[in-house]
């Protein structure tokens, strides 16, 4: 190779080492960029063209983003389980608060109600005791309906989060479809393509936190995304929005796909899955248990009340307005207006004698009566089981969130060990390229000096 050829080669090498420094700079600059995968410079020696040539120096073959597709997929698979438990734990924390502390919630109202009948049994003809019974009955009924209201508010709060998640899903699938289009149109393995793929992976990761997605790699580099039973969210450059439509008396949203099919049951994980489970299964389950307790209160109290006699010596009316079924009992429970309007209609006597207190005693004894769960539990026990269930559900979700979070953290650590930027490594690379640049510059100077020597020979 001629000296000028060598000079050209040295110049190319200088460019290559400088480019290496550029890549290091890019990596350092994006050390905090979410989804950024570290870049490495691919260099290749330019082979000699003749037997009398050492070679043409070095050339830049390209910049490569270091990815591990397997770890990316593991992350997409594990993230929904963690975010689902996180969503459940967060929303149930509110429900726990709504249930109130032990001894100051429905259980306390039940105690006060039965206490009022015990008080009446001590003085069956007392107008004050009768008024107290009515007040405690109304207070108990209100506490049931207030509790249902609080649970409904919790349900609506969760519903608001569902709407927010749906907006995010639609935004992300639109973004992924747009990225698919850009990636499909991009050529070669340029830096822009890698940036688009970083954004694509980050968007899919965010989407997997919202719902259980299935990702299929396209030949053009794009990603098709489906969920549930293969329902499409992104196919190539097309995205399919999820629609949230308010329905029912509470205005809770129903999720439908692009074809109007209800897809709520197919969203089984991710934060959206967690919120849907809490809204549609967990909280209604608590309300149902509350209904059972309220229904037992109404039927048991009415049975005793109707078997007794009021202060006028007439057969007792139902104390609570009779209910046809347990469903909705906690909302509908109320003191019978005919009794509420006339304290003398409160039953205390077991026989038609004004001073008798047999019925009031029986009513007070209902506190310990096993009338729930196939006559194995008292009403207090039933309330305790509801509290236990809510506490247990929240605790389980928290523990699962933590353990799933550890799994996600470990996978992220593994992914970062492949794709993440290490400042130490970049510092080492910086020295490496700097020193190489210096050596090449020295070589360039040497060749330049040789050319000068040659030119001086002919002067």
């Amino acid at each position: 190779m001629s000296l000028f050829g060598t000079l050209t080669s040295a110049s190319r090498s200088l460019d290559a080492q400088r480019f290496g420094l550029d890549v290091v700079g890019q990596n350092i600059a994006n050390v905090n960029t979410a989804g950024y995968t570290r870049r490495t410079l691919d260099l290749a020696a330019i082979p000699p063209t003749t037997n009398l040539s050492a070679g043409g120096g070095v050339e830049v073959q390209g910049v490569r983003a270091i990815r591990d597709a397997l770890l990316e997929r593991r992350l997409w698979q594990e993230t929904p389980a963690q975010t689902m438990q996180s969503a459940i734990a967060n929303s149930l924390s509110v429900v726990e608060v709504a249930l109130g502390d032990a001894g100051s919630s429905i259980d306390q109202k039940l105690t006060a109600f039965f206490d009022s009948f015990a008080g009446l049994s001590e003085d069956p003809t007392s107008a004050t005791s009768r008024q107290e019974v009515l007040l405690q009955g109304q207070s108990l009924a209100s506490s049931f309906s207030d509790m249902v209201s609080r649970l409904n508010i919790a349900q609506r709060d969760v519903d608001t989060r569902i709407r927010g998640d749906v907006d995010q899903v639609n935004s992300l699938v639109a973004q992924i479809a747009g990225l698919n289009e850009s990636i499909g149109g991009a050529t070669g393995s340029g830096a822009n393509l890698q940036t688009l793929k970083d954004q694509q992976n980050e968007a899919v990761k965010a989407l997997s936190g919202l719902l259980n997605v299935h990702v299929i790699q396209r030949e053009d580099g794009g990603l098709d995304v489906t969920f549930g039973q293969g329902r499409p969210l992104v196919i190539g450059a097309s995205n399919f929005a999820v629609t949230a439509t308010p329905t029912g008396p509470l205005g809770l949203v129903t999720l439908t796909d692009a074809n109007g099919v209800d897809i709520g049951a197919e969203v089984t994980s991710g934060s959206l899955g967690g919120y849907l489970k809490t809204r549609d299964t967990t909280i209604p389950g608590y309300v149902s248990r509350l209904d059972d307790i309220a229904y037992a209160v109404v039927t048991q109290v009415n049975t005793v009340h109707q078997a007794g006699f009021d202060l006028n010596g007439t057969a007792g009316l139902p104390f609570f307005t009779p209910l046809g079924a347990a469903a909705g009992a906690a909302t509908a429970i109320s003191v019978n207006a005919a009794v509420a309007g006339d304290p003398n209609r409160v039953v205390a006597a077991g026989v038609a004698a004004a001073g008798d207190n047999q019925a009031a005693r029986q009513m007070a004894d209902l506190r310990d009566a096993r009338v729930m769960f196939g006559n194995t539990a008292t009403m207090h026990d039933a309330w305790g089981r509801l509290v236990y269930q809510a506490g247990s559900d929240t605790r389980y979700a928290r523990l699962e969130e933590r353990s799933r979070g550890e799994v996600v953290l470990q996978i992220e650590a593994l992914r970062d060990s492949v794709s993440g930027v290490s400042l130490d490594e970049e510092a080492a690379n910086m020295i490496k390229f700097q020193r190489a640049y210096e050596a090449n510059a020295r070589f360039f100077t040497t060749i330049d000096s040789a050319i000068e020597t040659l030119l001086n020979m002919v002067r």
Partner: protein
Amino acid sequence: MRISFQSGFRHALADIERTSEELARRQREVSSGLRLQAPSDDPTAAVGAVSENAALGAIDRYQRAADSVGSRLTVVDTVLGDIVEKLTQAQAVATGGLGDTPSQAQREAAARELAGIRDALFGDFNTNFRGVFVFAGTSSTTQTYTKNPDGTVAAYQGNTSTISVDIDRTSSVQITFDGSSVAQGGEARDVFAVIEALRADILAGDTPAIETGIADLKKAFDRAVRAQTQVGTDQKALEDQRLRLTDEKLGATERLSKLTEANMAEAISAMSRAETGYKAALGATATITRVSLMDYLK
């Protein structure tokens, strides 16, 4: 394994969050004195707390009932004691009218004294405690005995049923009484009729009739003593029950305390450990982020 910048921070942040959450939880425990902040802290303890609170509610109720019943029984005991005393006096007065010895003036004085005793007994049997005639059976708002226009006492106005109040899940105490069972029992005449007859018999000097009257007073005395004995027995049982309820309340309160309240020594120690862990996590993060190859480049 390569340790990336982000990975190091992610782990450090997770550790800081975990330790700070633990510290915050322990701080709440110490400041509130409560181990159980929410059911999810310990669901089993939460359901136990519901159960113990229900038990405490029932104990409180029974204690209030025992107090109320105790007050009432004290009144009844006092009244029965007075009845016994009056019947003793009546027997003594009637005995003084026996035979031919008493003068007419003494007989008239004895008759007047018996009238006084009758009125006292009338008041005793009509004892009203907080609006309830305690000797009228379940007709507790009906005056037990009333007087006829001529001053004599009419027949028993109450009924023979009685009211009991629960002082425990399995025991109850009678709080109203069938006055006729004391005043008359199974006899043909009640104590008021006996005294009326005695007054006439003493004035008439009818010794056999007076003796019959004294015998009837003795029977009434026995009935009153029996009733008082029963009340005394109930009072004793009530006192025992109060002690039992106090013990039960103490037990339930202790169990509730164990379930819900923090052991302060343990809690403070745990808070101290949590604080150390938190500081260690912060320190470790600060240390690892201080060291970098970048620092050695010139």
